[in-house]
């Protein structure tokens, strides 16, 4: 017996808005969260802009997310982002924090890239200075890669499977897919899923050195992230987190939960770093296959996709991605669905990209709109060989959105595609048995 899986709660810590209402307002109005970073100029980075949430770590204590004892000694920004997004999603789902017994029916799959290099820097400095005795008890839990999931599951008493995943830029969508599969296959009734990313100077510097970052708009930060533009010169790193509460449909209905959308299915694969794929480039055959499998698993055709939430980072991979979508959906020109890139507003949030963009996808279904691609005033002329430019909205389009295809492609040639749908309780087009 296969189960239907619905989204009942959302939380987001995004460079252009913290909390669902601020984030919704930002994506409807094309508000950029990219800012100039004076420190990056000082550090002689080529790219001196970034997407960074207006996040205050002390809010975790002051707004009762965690106890003052847990907060004392908490330094990890990555953990802070993830915790806030996850706990906001939990509250949004109408659930309360405290429980005496473990919640055996609920698990957590939450991803990140690195745990926290600033926490590790503290370890390295202390150890090198022969001060290991001063590190204390709170370092390991913040330096370990599973720090975020540990804090989330501990706060909420989650007793089902708790997994930390990592798949570069596909991490967020992969976490959601795994959570969906866990419920669909009957192993859990509810999964808190998502991902977080804190791009500190060390992570940022490593990308900067690869010469893949935007560097020509340092003094016009809001224009720096330009997916699909002819002047796109690389991506802008962003930080943040987002989380979804996924539930078994019957379980959600039984408790009277608000249902935002349904996860129809998805797929994760790898291009094997063959036939055009490499450590850093996606094999087009892998991408196309991933999207096709996601649609097949969701029992939809390419014609049913109303909106594509692309990966579209603002590198030269954008043109290949558009062609991949055309082939996978078997649609092009005027027939191509609407497509947008949230990265135009918040940059590329790496491991957090998939979860933040999934929240944006669901909000577009719930509120009936396609958010604008900002900075697309000079689209790459190559695009019109494949699709009509009017398929890439530059201002908000208010329109019924039934189905969104959301994909991310990551280093290591890993892909994930999710299919989100408006929730229809009387859906007879799909076989759920």
């Amino acid at each position, binding site marked *: 017996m296969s189960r239907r899986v619905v989204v009942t709660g959302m939380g987001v810590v995004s460079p252009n808005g913290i909390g669902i209402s601020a984030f919704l307002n930002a994506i409807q109005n094309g508000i950029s969260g990219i800012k100039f970073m004076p420190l990056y100029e000082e550090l002689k980075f080529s790219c001196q802009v970034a997407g960074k949430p207006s996040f205050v770590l002390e809010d975790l204590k002051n707004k009762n997310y965690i106890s003052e004892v847990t907060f004392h000694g908490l330094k990890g920004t990555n953990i802070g982002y993830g915790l806030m997004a996850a706990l906001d999603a939990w509250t949004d789902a109408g659930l309360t924090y405290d429980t005496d017994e473990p919640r055996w029916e609920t698990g957590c799959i939450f991803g990140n890239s690195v745990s926290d290099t600033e926490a590790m820097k503290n370890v390295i400095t202390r150890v090198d200075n022969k001060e290991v*005795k001063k590190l*204390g008890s709170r370092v390991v839990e913040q330096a370990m890669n599973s720090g975020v999931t540990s804090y989330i599951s501990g706060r909420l008493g989650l007793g089902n499977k708790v997994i930390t995943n990592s798949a570069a830029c596909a991490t967020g969508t992969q976490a959601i897919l795994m959570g969906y599969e866990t419920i669909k296959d009957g192993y859990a009734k509810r999964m808190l899923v998502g991902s977080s990313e804190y791009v500190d100077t060390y992570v940022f510097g490593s990308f900067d050195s690869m010469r893949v970052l935007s560097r020509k708009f340092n003094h016009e930060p809001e224009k720096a992230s330009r997916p699909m533009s002819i002047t796109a010169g690389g991506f802008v790193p962003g930080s943040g987190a987002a989380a979804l509460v996924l539930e078994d449909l019957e379980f959600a209905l039984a408790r009277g939960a608000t249902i935002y959308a349904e996860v129809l299915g998805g797929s994760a694969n790898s291009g094997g770093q063959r036939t055009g794929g490499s450590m850093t480039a996606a094999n087009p055959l892998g991408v196309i296959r991933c999207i096709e499998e996601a649609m097949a698993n969701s029992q939809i055709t390419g014609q049913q996709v109303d909106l594509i939430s692309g990966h579209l980072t603002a590198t030269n991979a954008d043109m290949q991605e558009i062609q991949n979508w055309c082939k996978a959906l078997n649609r092009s020109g005027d027939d191509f669905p609407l497509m947008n890139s949230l990265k135009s507003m918040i940059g590329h949030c790496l491991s957090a990209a998939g979860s933040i963009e999934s929240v944006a996808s669901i909000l577009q279904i719930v509120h009936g709109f396609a958010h604008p691609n900002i900075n697309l005033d000079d689209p790459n002329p190559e695009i019109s060989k494949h699709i009509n430019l009017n398929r890439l909205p530059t201002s908000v389009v208010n329109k019924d959105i039934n189905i969104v295809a959301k994909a991310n492609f990551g280093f290591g040639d890993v892909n994930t595609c999710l299919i989100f749908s408006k929730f229809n309780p009387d859906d007879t087009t799909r076989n759920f048995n």
Partner: protein
Amino acid sequence: MTRQEILIELRKVLSPYTLDKETLANIDEGTNLITDLKINSANLVDIIIDAETKYNIEIDYDAADKMVNVGGCIDVIEEKTNQQI
């Protein structure tokens, strides 16, 4: 420093590690850090580090083992600070 003076200062050291402020306000030498103040046993290491910094002393493994209740903590702090004089 008298034992009572150390106890008053020790209360400040323990404060960030317990949510039970009422018990903390009423500690005496018999108060157990883990069972009475509900301090996570892993945090005893942090309390030792904080005490070392506060009193500019070094607390070795053997001394640390005695710091399970308030009286034991005071014994260790008293002994180590006296060694300095």
